[in-house]
């Protein structure tokens, strides 16, 4: 498998925003709701592969360096608060029991959390704010604008702070100049400049959007999104695997409980089908990317 990074969002990002959005909705809800260990593993694997495919080593580093400690902490914290379960391993200092079930469910919750974070990092790379506004600009104009602004807020802030900090550095007033108190002063100054800029910028944005007639009836927006046969195919695949997965989940073929004792559905043909469908759903963007890469290489070599 090629691990070339695709910073632009890769092949899947080239699909229609509707396809992208539907996909992430299905996958994110699935990652949060399906707590069967196998479902968790499938979703984590899918998210991990896709994030590495999108951002290469950067994602790999992030996943390993921050997600694993986060997972460990979550997994350790759960048994400190939750004492339910029939398998008592030992007693904690507080006098409450430490149970196997609470440890395992803590691990499951940790995996779930990390999986959702990784899926969201993929979402961020693929569902850019223009796509989001394209989808929801008509239905919920103000909310979608706010959402896209909020999502852009942190990266934007960071960029601007870098600009200010560089400007201050030129006059010797950056946080890297001077002693501790001086530095703190400079830092506060930069933050104050930042605050002024943010307030001014917010008003400017609002005025600008208003003067362009954003949200008014009859206003059209330029977009280059086309729903073609490729999107149709992808949508069918997503809808089909999604329906199978969610249908199965509703019917209980992915049933698993952690308390009071761990017990899951007997793995039968239907369960296997559901898990395969879920696996297919989670790996759709990766498969699309691999197919694209393969086609590209094949075309190149046949020249």
């Amino acid at each position, binding site marked *: 498998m090629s691990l070339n990074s695709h910073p632009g969002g890769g092949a899947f990002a080239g699909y229609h925003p509707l396809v992208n959005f539907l996909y992430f909705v299905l996958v994110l809800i699935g990652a949060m709701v399906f707590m069967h260990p196998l479902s968790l593993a499938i979703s984590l694997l899918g998210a991990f592969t896709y994030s590495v495919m999108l951002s290469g080593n*950067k994602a790999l*580093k*992030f996943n390993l*360096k*921050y997600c694993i*400690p*986060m997972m460990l*902490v*979550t997994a*350790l*914290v759960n048994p*400190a*608060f939750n*004492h*339910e*379960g*029939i398998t*008592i391993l030992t*007693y904690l*200092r*507080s*006098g*409450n*029991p430490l*149970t196997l079930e609470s440890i395992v469910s803590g691990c499951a919750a940790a995996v779930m959390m990390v999986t959702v974070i990784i899926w969201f990092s993929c979402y961020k790379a693929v569902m850019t704010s223009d796509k989001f506004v394209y989808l929801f600009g008509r239905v919920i104009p103000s909310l979608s604008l706010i959402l896209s602004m909020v999502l852009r807020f942190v990266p934007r802030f*960071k960029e601007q702070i870098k600009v200010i900090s560089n400007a201050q550095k030129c006059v010797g007033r950056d946080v890297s100049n001077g002693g501790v108190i001086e530095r703190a002063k400079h830092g506060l100054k930069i933050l104050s400049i930042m605050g002024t800029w943010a307030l001014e910028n917010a008003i400017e944005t609002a005025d600008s959007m208003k003067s362009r007639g954003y949200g008014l009836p009859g206003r059209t927006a330029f977009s280059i999104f086309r729903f073609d046969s490729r999107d149709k195919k992808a949508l069918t695949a997503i809808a089909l695997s999604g329906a199978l997965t969610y249908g199965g989940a509703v019917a209980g073929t992915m049933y698993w*409980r952690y*308390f*009071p004792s761990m017990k899951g559905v007997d793995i039968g043909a239907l369960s296997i089908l559901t898990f395969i469908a879920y696996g297919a759903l989670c790996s759709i963007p990766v498969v699309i990317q691999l197919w694209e890469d393969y086609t590209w290489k094949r075309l190149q070599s046949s020249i």
Partner: protein
Amino acid sequence: MSKKHRYLAILLILILAMTTFLTGCGGAGEEPPVDPQGGEQIEQPLDEVTGEETDSEEPEAGDGEVAGDSETDGNVVTETENENGGQGDVEYSESQGMKIDEETGKDQFLTDPVPAGKPIPVEPQHAVITDKQLTCTLTITCKTILDNIDDLDPEKVELIPEDGVILAKKTVTFYEGENVFQLLRRETKANKIHMEFEDTPIYNSAYIEGIHNLYEFDCGELSGWMYKVNGWYPNYGCSRYQLKEGDEVEWIYTCDLGRDIGGRNVLE
């Protein structure tokens, strides 16, 4: 890029660590004394707890020496009803050493006066636990669930014993000065029965959340564990009920705030 992630991760971990630390501390600090293996072991942590939680007004309940030094005239209003043990008796409670606040009609841990003839609460911090072994009986039942099985969390149905008896009446040993909570804790541990509790400083007692993985609210929203000693449902927490020789302690699961097990309604 990696720098910002580092800050984020550090922040997250800090928050998590802080929550763990704080709650961990709370749990350890409020913990009532356990393990009766050595009577003198217990006294040391006791003082810590006292210092933290009780103010100087604390009645010397354990000794029973503090006579009702308050004016008995104005206290008639504060009598409260207790279906099971009769009326809460202010005069009796005060003569036993319970310190009732005139304004609220309750003691400093929000307990109403006890009915005449019933033991008043003994703060676990003040209890003197000796080496003297005494016996009492202990029963744990959840028979009410059998009648309300439809309300029960479906995942828990398999836990219910057919006769509803989790621990059949059993004669158990305790150390003089111990309370109902300490007994329950030791016996559930010894009999490999799951039990989870939470310390509630405002009532100066442990609250039993679940026994045998049957938790409060598992069988309808009015359900939970109650305890009964010698046929009476005390109107205070189990950490404040000091055991005596021959006491009959029962832990009973209620599905209706105690009304279905012949107890007082805990909300009244």
